């Protein structure tokens, strides 16, 4: 789905090609939405009966996507806000800030949807807000997101104002939060002290690094899709610089992520024992394709290679693959942490599909995943449209 196609995109695509891309993207989106709606219908008709998660692996794809989206949301905001405040190339304009905010919110809302649908009692979602315990990272996070959402919305509105004393301070607060909550996603797992695999402080670093990478990749992708605001040599150069910056951010974040990931898992082999069953499951067991093929190959190596080329088109592809790869990376944290039961023989003691240390997402879960993506992209689209509309109304440059 492309928003506005300018005469000549920053990637050098000509208008005609962009137009036909637009049709394809629209069709894709409609298909995604249709599939997603079907999935949601299934979810509401059959409850959780068609899902693949159970009681020994209680969280599945949606929670993975949730943490992915949270990361992208935080990453996009922090990059946008910091870039704006520091007036970095491609970030200094209000419109660029707004774009980052819109992406951040567009990523956050589907995350809520994923969680809501994952709940056994979806309509009780709000009781997290009405009767929380902040000892629970889940409640804490939920409050964070909501406050962040308000902050982001206010920032967004203020960005249309001619001048505002509050914009930057609020951006700082938002940036602060958006650094915190992806890290807290890590804490969300770390806080489970009875789970060796998760109970490791490195997770917050990993989640933060991935958030930055995701934010960068997200912005890069969005930019690639909508192109620069208007042609012209200078704009093009600016675009190129900003893309380059994002590219570097993504590369660095991915590398940081990998360094920490290596640290995390290699420890397991230097001190075999405690959490090695999960790591073995992840690296050599059932989960090896997800880890090695999806996460490492498709999500790290290929994107790094693509991002290191000179072709901006390939960067976009690299960014896209990095996002997909981090989706896989989320699952490599989520699922292995749930698979190795502490009680030997538990799985055989009472056999049921929901009482197995095994998880692969079902069609219904993927369909709902499509819904999340469709909603996110729609929000992004609407947001970008609104950005332009309101900016025009306010007499600002679009």
């Amino acid at each position: 789905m492309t928003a506005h196609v300018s005469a000549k995109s920053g990637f050098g695509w000509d208008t005609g090609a962009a137009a036909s891309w637009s049709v394809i993207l629209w069709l894709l989106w409609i298909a995604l939405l249709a599939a997603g709606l079907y999935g949601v219908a299934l979810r509401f008709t059959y409850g959780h009966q068609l899902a693949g998660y159970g009681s020994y692996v209680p969280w599945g794809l949606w929670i993975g996507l949730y943490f992915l989206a949270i990361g992208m949301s935080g990453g996009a905001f922090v990059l946008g806000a910091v870039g704006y405040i520091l007036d970095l190339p491609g970030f200094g304009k209000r419109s660029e800030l707004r774009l980052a905010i819109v992406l951040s919110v567009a990523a956050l809302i589907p995350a809520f949807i994923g969680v809501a649908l994952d709940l056994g009692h979806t309509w009780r979602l709000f009781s997290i807000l009405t009767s929380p315990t902040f000892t629970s990272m889940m409640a804490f996070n939920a409050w964070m997101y909501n406050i962040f959402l308000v902050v982001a919305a206010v920032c967004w509105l203020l960005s249309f104002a001619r001048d505002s004393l509050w914009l930057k301070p609020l951006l700082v607060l938002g940036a602060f939060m958006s650094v915190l909550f992806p890290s807290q996603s890590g804490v969300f797992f770390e806080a489970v002290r009875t789970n060796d695999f998760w109970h490791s402080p490195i997770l917050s670093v990993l989640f933060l690094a991935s958030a930055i990478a995701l934010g960068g990749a997200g912005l890069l992708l969005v930019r690639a899709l909508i192109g620069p605001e208007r042609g012209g040599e200078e704009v093009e150069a600016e675009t190129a610089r900003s893309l380059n910056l994002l590219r570097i951010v993504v590369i660095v974040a991915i590398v940081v992520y990998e360094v920490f990931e290596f640290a995390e898992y290699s420890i397991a082999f230097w001190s075999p024992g405690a959490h090695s069953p999960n790591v073995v499951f992840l690296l050599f067991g059932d989960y090896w394709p997800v880890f090695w093929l999806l996460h490492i190959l498709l999500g790290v190596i290929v994107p790094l290679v693509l991002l290191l080329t000179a072709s901006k088109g390939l960067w976009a592809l690299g960014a896209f693959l990095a996002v997909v790869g981090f989706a896989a990376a989320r699952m490599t944290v989520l699922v292995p942490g749930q698979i190795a039961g502490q009680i030997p023989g538990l799985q055989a003691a009472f056999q049921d599909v929901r009482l197995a240390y095994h998880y692969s997402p079902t069609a219904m879960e993927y369909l709902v995943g499509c819904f999340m993506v469709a909603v996110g992209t729609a929000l992004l689209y609407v947001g970008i449209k609104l950005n332009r509309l309101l900016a025009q109304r306010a007499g600002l440059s679009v």
Partner: protein
Amino acid sequence: MTESKKRMDRREFVLAAGLVGAGTAVGVAAIVKDRLKTEPIDPTGEGTVRNLSVLKNIKPQEHEDFLVRMQRELVAAMAKPVEKRHWIMVIDIRKCIGCFACTIGCVAENKLPPGVVYRPVTTQEIGEFPNIQIRFVPRPCMHCNTPSCVAVCPVKATWKRPDGVVVIDYDKCIGCRYCLNACPYGARTSDFGRYYSSDAAEGARTGKDRPVEGRTLPWQHEPNNEYAKNWDRKDHSSPVGNARKCHFCLHRLEVGQLPMCVTTCIGRATYFGDENDPNSLVVELKTKNNVQTLIPHWGNQPQCFYIV
């Protein structure tokens, strides 16, 4: 066009610092507040005293069945206010024969749907022919003194009662399954709203004149009495969608009955009682034997003790 002022000025900086500082303060305060021990929401005191006549008319026999002895002790414990009792379970692995009577007793008592189980019994084969051994370990909820499941619940739907029982309020629980992941014993399972035998006798005619019974199994549609309330699961209502776990059969304790898995333990391997009663069988067993808890290093302080 106010793209002029690129860098933050002092005022903005102070404001920003203030916002961040205030935000942090509120967050910390919220956490600290909830970390502090709160008053139990459960009823306590005189209102929780139960004067039950159970077994009062039955004279003790010589070498009374442990079941009856424990039931007598239970009746005595119920005559104290709830905060004066501390329920514990003792499982004698030497006597457990891996018969699953407790597993199914619990399933039946609580009308657990497929995929929900409170007390599985694991079987482990050790050694090589002919020097082998089989070990059976029943695994109820440990009713931990520092339950890792409770802290993670975002909505206070699960807590530890004054009598030591870790409970879930199904009406509060949102079904996030965080607690499932937080329990190191796998003691919590989620009710996904399934029913047993949905595909039996497909095609059978219905109606008064039907030749083959063919109807849905009626025993699973009556309400259960967990926490002494009615739960019929109709129309996806609670406990469908909730986390579920062993609750030491609170509803049976209320009427002077032992937990189901204790009552139906064929090997008489499962004991239950009030740790605050020094003369109780559980205390006797716990002190006289070499008892262990499961995975003690998690620091959950399980209140289910194994004699090995």
